[in-house]
């Protein structure tokens, strides 16, 4: 898997929240086509890592490279234009807008109306429930539907890298299975995924490789298969 040039590379990434060090010297690599997961306890810095990549929080030191280009000088909207879509923690659908408006906003950076219409249709095929609720306000959807909407919205920008923050959070097991099945399809269709999850079993089943984050630092990383049987991971995260 680790052949070729990385799609995303974090080097010595350090992030502070005020006086508190949230991330310390993070090294992480994602190759094209991979699913890589970042696992760890609540507050370990998983979401912070994704937020730093999307540039909605500032990095204190280190480097973030996407296809070899530094993201550190870019605004968040530029990062999206470069090909990174972020499905934030808690889904963050625009509750007072319709499902369709949410999806069209996902394609905000694009100007090809025919392509956008095709992709909209594709999302509705992928998530038929969104089609049924097309004209409904996103705030009236169930948690699972909102997660589907958040993922579909991110896909509308045609990203090359998808950052997923806790897609299973607060959802019923059957909905989680449905969402992860979709994520697998997406990955086989060529979308690279960096997945943040508290549910380590689920994440390691889907990912090729994983990083274990503890108190803002990477403790170790390995292939998902090896992490699954690693005693330290088992004890701390697999229960």
């Amino acid at each position, binding site marked *: 898997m680790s052949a070729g040039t990385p799609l995303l590379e974090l080097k010595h990434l350090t992030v502070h929240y005020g006086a508190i060090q949230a991330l310390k010297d993070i090294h992480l690599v994602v190759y094209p086509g991979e699913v890589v997961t970042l696992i760890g306890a609540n507050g370990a810095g998983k979401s912070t890592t994704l937020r730093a990549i*999307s540039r*909605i929080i500032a990095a204190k030191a280190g480097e973030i490279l996407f296809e070899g280009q530094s993201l550190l000088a870019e*605004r*968040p*909207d530029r990062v*999206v*234009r470069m090909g990174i*879509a*972020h499905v*934030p923690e808690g889904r*963050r659908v*625009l*509750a*007072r*807008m319709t499902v369709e*408006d949410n999806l*069209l*906003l*996902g394609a*905000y*950076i694009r100007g090809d109306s025919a392509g956008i219409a095709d992709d909209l249709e594709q999302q509705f095929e992928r998530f038929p429930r969104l089609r049924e609720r097309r004209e409904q306000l996103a705030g009236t959807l169930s948690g699972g539907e909102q997660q589907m909407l958040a993922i579909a*919205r991110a896909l509308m*920008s045609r990203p090359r890298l998808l950052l997923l923050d806790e897609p299973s959070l607060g959802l019923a097991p059957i909905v989680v299975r449905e969402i992860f099945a979709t994520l697998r399809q997406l990955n086989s269709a060529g979308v690279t995924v960096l997945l943040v999850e508290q549910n380590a079993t689920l994440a390691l089943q889907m990912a090729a490789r994983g990083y274990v984050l503890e108190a803002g630092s990477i403790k170790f990383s390995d292939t998902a298969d090896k992490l699954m049987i690693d005693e330290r991971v088992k004890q701390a995260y697999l229960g």
Partner: protein
Amino acid sequence: MELTTLLQQLINGLSIGSVYAIFALGYTLIFSILGIINFAHGAVFTLGAYFTYALTGARFGFNGIFAEAQLPFGLPFLLALFVGAGLAGLVGVLVERALFRPLRARGADPLLTLVSSLGIAVALVNTIQYFVGAEVYSFPSSVLQGLPPSVNFGTPEAPLVVRTVQLVIGVISLVILVVLTWFINRTKTGRALRAVAEDSTTSSLLGINTDRLILLTFFISGFVGGIAGTLVGLSVTITGPYFGIAFGLKGLAVIVLGGLGNIPGAVLGGIVIGIAENLLPSSAVAYKDAIAFAILFVVLLIRPQGLLGRTQVQKV
């Protein structure tokens, strides 16, 4: 009240109410995006009126730096109105760049921003006075060239006469309202504006340049404020540099009445107050300005969130 008089006053109320509505939209757009009331809006309203006045080629008075100055050309009124509003919009943009954005970047308390916007309002008012003095200005009657002073919608036996000025300002404001509503609800940029108003961080994760949209919002806000200033100046007179301050207070009543940050609410609030003022018996006309606040008081007792406001006003 006779039926014809009632209809007449309803038309007048609708007309001035539409001006209130577009003015209040200027407040409401900025409030819905930044959660802050921009007190400089009243001063931008005043500036819009002066810009248009100057652009029509009219002469300034005896005081101020620009005493007796006039432009070497005069634009037709409608063109001057839009160019003047555009200039007012640019002042709005300047206020955002010089004041709101730096404060936002420092994470300043909203109260500080609010007080600073009051400061800008005072500074703008004094600048106006410095340049053009404190006189009352009236648009020359030639701006409505070729139009009769009033129109009779009734029959010669039962006249229903409305001043042409009222019709002109009503029609222009209604057109602006329709265009703005279409823009916000039906265009890609309008959709992005609504997204930023709801959640600016998420909007930036969708590729929206939020600072640029905020700048656009200030332009639109200044633009509609400038239009409203000119229209009120046309309807009555430009009463001096403080012209927009009293009007600004009424605009606040309008948006609170309709529901803070609520666009249809601002329109409804403007029209309600416009009509209510005009239905006052002539003996009570002196209390016209108090009416807006009386209505506001009563409505807020019953509906604290305003007529169309959401129960939860707090931004999360």
